[in-house]
């Protein structure tokens, strides 16, 4: 109700506010008038994952909100979640549409790929999305745990996309089951690479190959793949100890810690930077603390200690603090402050890098030094004609909303390329 309905809203601006360009003031006005379906329609113009963004978006629009300067900003994310959960129709109607004869292949059924597929299908292209795993959704299904994005919500959003005529082909690994050249010979005129950044960054300390050391991706994937029934809900299906240490300051680390706490384990979250400089929204951090996670900021891992059997016994750490280094205010280790945290499982979640399987099999596609695909920033095109790349595979690890925005941009340039 506090929304001032700015004439030139910053929150809907593509560069400063919502990267998707959702007309935020308009949908808030609809909500104010009690027209929830109308509000959902406004969001749906630019966003095909409204309920999911309403849950896990990093919300740049709230930072851009004019009210954030003196008072707290409008809770746009929560409003979006409300509009999407209550404004959508309960049943999905299959829309019969005359598609044109141009075929587009999208590699990777993650947020970016599906957004691009949704946009192109709306414009009448025959879109096929290729996914290597058994179900579409990508990071939303295999990365984000169930308590943040319920699988039911994801399924209904994907059904909405499928109803537009998007074909999703699962168990099909482009680069292995078929190559990009095979796709071209099958008649796909435009190809979009949206394979994301899913490979973990390896940590460069001693002891990361011990038993009981997981990387965040592996841990979350195992949690998400576990079949849950009423009886086995809180029982992990993989070896996990009683005392868990999670290393990392991002969303993945917090998700790992919150998932581990749900197995009724003792969880400590450690990271190198001060607590208010993490990449997580403050409310999420508060949720984590309320659930029983012990947060230890300004700690650096020196070594993972081993017991006599070759599994983890503890984590040797050192405290960090601000200090004056040649005139710069930097975080450096405090001398003689080493200590050991007891742990039998260590989860490392310090970042992602792109998976290079696809670019290895198709050497014509040029890659940057950090394994991301080289693209033209203006129109997402790669060094091969007709092949585009978008999302985290091109930009490196970025928030969900930015990947989706790039998907939209790539869809527009594919449309331009084909017409």
């Amino acid at each position, binding site marked *: 109700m506090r929304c001032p309905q700015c004439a030139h809203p910053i929150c809907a601006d593509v560069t400063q506010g919502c990267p998707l360009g959702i007309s935020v003031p308009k949908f808030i006005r609809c909500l104010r008038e009690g027209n929830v379906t109308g509000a959902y329609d406004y969001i749906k113009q630019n966003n095909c994952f409204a309920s999911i963004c309403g849950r896990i978006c990093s919300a740049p629009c709230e930072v851009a909100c004019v009210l954030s300067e003196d008072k707290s900003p409008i809770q746009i994310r929560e409003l979006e979640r409300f509009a999407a959960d209550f404004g959508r129709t309960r049943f999905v109607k299959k829309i019969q549409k005359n598609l044109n004869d141009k075929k587009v292949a999208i590699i990777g059924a993650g947020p970016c790929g599906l957004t691009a597929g949704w946009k192109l299908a709306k414009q009448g292209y025959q879109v096929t999305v290729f996914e*290597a*795993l*058994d179900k579409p959704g990508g990071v939303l299904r*295999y990365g984000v745990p169930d308590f943040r994005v319920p699988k039911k919500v994801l399924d209904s959003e994907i059904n909405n996309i499928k109803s537009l005529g998007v074909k999703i082909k*699962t*168990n*099909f*690994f482009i680069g*292995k*089951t*078929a190559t990009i050249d095979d796709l071209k010979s099958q008649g796909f005129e435009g190809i979009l690479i949206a394979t994301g950044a*899913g*490979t*973990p960054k*390896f940590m460069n300390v001693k002891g*990361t*190959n*011990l*038993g*009981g050391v*997981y*990387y965040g*991706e*592996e841990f979350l*994937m*195992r949690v998400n*793949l*576990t*079949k849950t*029934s009423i*009886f*086995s809900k809180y*029982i*992990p*299906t*993989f*070896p996990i100890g009683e005392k868990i240490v999670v290393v990392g300051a991002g969303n993945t680390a917090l998700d790992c810690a919150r998932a581990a706490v749900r197995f009724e384990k003792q969880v400590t979250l450690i990271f190198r930077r001060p607590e208010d400089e993490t990449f997580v929204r403050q409310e999420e951090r508060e949720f984590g603390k309320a659930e029983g996670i012990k947060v230890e900021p300004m700690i650096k891992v020196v070594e993972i200690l081993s017991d006599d*059997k*070759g*599994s983890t016994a503890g984590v040797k750490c050192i405290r960090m603090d601000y200090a004056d280094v040649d005139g710069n205010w930097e975080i450096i280790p405090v001398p003689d402050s080493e200590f050991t945290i007891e742990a039998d499982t260590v989860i490392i979640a310090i970042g992602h890098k792109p*998976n*290079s*399987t696809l670019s290895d099999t198709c050497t014509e596609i040029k890659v940057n030094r950090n394994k991301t695909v080289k693209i033209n920033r203006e129109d997402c095109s790669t060094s091969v004609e007709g092949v585009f790349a978008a999302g985290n595979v091109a930009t490196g690890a970025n928030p969900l909303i930015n990947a989706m925005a790039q998907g939209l941009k790539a869809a527009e340039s594919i449309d331009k390329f084909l017409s």
Partner: protein
Amino acid sequence: MFEIISKQILAQDIKRIDISAPDIAKKVKPGQFVSICPEEGDERIPLTVVDWDSSKGTISIIFQEIGQTTGKLGTLPIGEPIFSILGPLGVQSQIEKKGTVVCIATGIGAAQILPICRAFSRVGNKVIGIVGAKTKKSLMLEAQMRLACNKIFITTNDGSYERKGLATDILRELIKKREVDFVYAIGTIDMMKEVCSITKEKSIETRIQIKPVMVDCMGMCGSCRVVVNGKIVLACIEGPEFDGQEIELEDFSKRMETFKESCKCKNQKLISSQQKKESPTLMKFLLDILKD
């Protein structure tokens, strides 16, 4: 889509199934594997493709029923679809003309070495096979191996068939007697360690195939990481074949040990007993019998 076409029991607890998977059969090369998830919500397991027929569009896999997932895969009847198969994954084996090639395998490794033996003899190598088994009962694919190799040695641990002893003993004798240009080993980690130490003395080129625990099998989880030449690499992308002298097997065996222990965990037993109860295939099977 991925239907089981035929099923065969080869030895104790070891089964072979043929699955219709035309896309994979077209592309697969020796040494590659597929990732299989028998039913929705199960663990995904990597299994080597032993044989394939691109005209029929089928692939064959051989597995030992040891864990939960392989156990479930073994109970699936002919005609039942498998939930998900992803492949072909991994890098194909480097098959070149070397001269005399010794292919050594123990246990379930005998199934995985068969396509390698065939490929090596096709390019004109002299292939000597050494197969080790626990007893005569657990020995499998003997006829196929005899066809694929120029000469074959079989050992059993208890002496119930052919020679008593270990497969590595024969390798040691062979290397003393005649010239060997290349050794390829698949088996338990201890056996591969032994093979590598034997060949290191004579500086014979050795390649091994490892079977680490994998989750998604496409290089996203980092579960299959091994140290090669001091660098961490993922076995699902750059493996499963590695140079025997470069890979650090000591490190790898430690990691695998923790996963073995977990099978004896309390929570593990609880789940397996539950899943047996609610196994839909078993129920379906029983209902089918009752109908007849």
